[in-house]
């Protein structure tokens, strides 16, 4: 299963009517209107974590039982917990007003090569090491939070 089949099967089909084309369905669910508590809207803020079997998002989406919407954790709290309990392919994504390009959407298969996807690009880091001065901002923040959690 490639990246976009994964998004189609574990996120799109639980939220929207799928077309059958994984790329089209991934683009639709990540950049177009989806059912919300209230009227449909785009995923234009907050964060998402998509795993085998379903997804968790911060916005109050109205999907089936495989989608948990309205998670009140911050993106860093959610991603930290997921990384500390990593168990297979996961999409870590930050939503923003500017639509994300599918070219910036990558799955994480291994904590040694974590991909955090956002409109600004993809931050890649090795969660089993410590950040250095060249590390990206998400890695530095998550590492700091992990330090506090373990203190």
């Amino acid at each position, binding site marked *: 299963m*490639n*990246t*976009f089949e994964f998004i189609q099967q574990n996120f799109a089909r639980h939220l929207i009517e799928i077309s059958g084309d*994984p*790329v089209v369905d*991934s683009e639709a669910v990540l950049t177009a209107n989806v059912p919300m508590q209230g009227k449909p809207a785009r995923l234009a803020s907050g964060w998402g974590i998509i795993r085998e079997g379903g997804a968790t998002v911060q916005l109050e989406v109205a999907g089936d039982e495989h989608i948990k919407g309205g998670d009140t954790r911050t993106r860093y709290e959610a991603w930290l917990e997921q990384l500390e309990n990593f168990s297979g*392919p996961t999409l870590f994504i930050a939503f923003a007003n500017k639509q994300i390009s*599918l*070219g910036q959407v*990558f*799955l*994480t*298969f*291994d904590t*040694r*090569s974590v*991909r955090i996807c956002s409109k600004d690009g993809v931050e890649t880091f*090795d969660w089993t090491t410590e950040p250095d001065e060249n590390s990206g901002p998400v890695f530095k923040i998550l590492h700091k939070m992990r330090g506090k959690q373990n203190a």
Partner: protein
Amino acid sequence: MKKLTITATLKTPVITLGYFTFDGLLGGIIFDKRNDGDVAAAHAAIPIKCTDGLYHASAARFIGASFGRASFSAALRATHDLDPDQILKSKDGTKLHRTLGLKRMREFGMVKNDYKIIIAARIEWDVEGDDQGIAETLGDVFWIGKRRAAGYGEVSNWDMQYGNSDGLVGPSGEPMRPIPATRFKGDLTQPLTDAAWKPAYWAFEHRAACFVPSNEWRFPQPEEQVIDEHV
């Protein structure tokens, strides 16, 4: 088909995205030369051994690389009207919901693109392919990568040596290019990464869980010269 090591000696820094595999480079060159818009035909003409879509060609190894950044801004100023059919109309369908006046068009300003540049003495690839075909394809190519018109990626010399690598897996079992997990025959303890594994590398359908070359492999530093002060 012969096992080869191809070296490009660089005159200027180069801008590339991704793993810059040799099949990707040749595919792009052939596509440009054919100039017929047929991507599949260009890829079919790549003179490199291909097994079920997987080319026997390594990612680029930038020898002694250091890095920098370059930014380009392009003036994207609208000078024509938008197609009225593309603009929302009033409820009765007679008036455009919104129009762009000339004053507002002028506000459409510069678009900035940022790139990471790679400063390296040379780039090396290992490949299994047709030496004649590769030489012919590279014959008149002296600019590679992105932003060539701005002076990036100038090649002063191409060199081809007979080698002993198939461009897929290195001597320690390390991946030399993105290889789908199900087809990788090397060291399976390496981390899996989401990557495109065959051309066109921009095509989303070509992404898969792959074993990919490490940064240490892609950007090797030349061994420091030891100076014996007692001589």
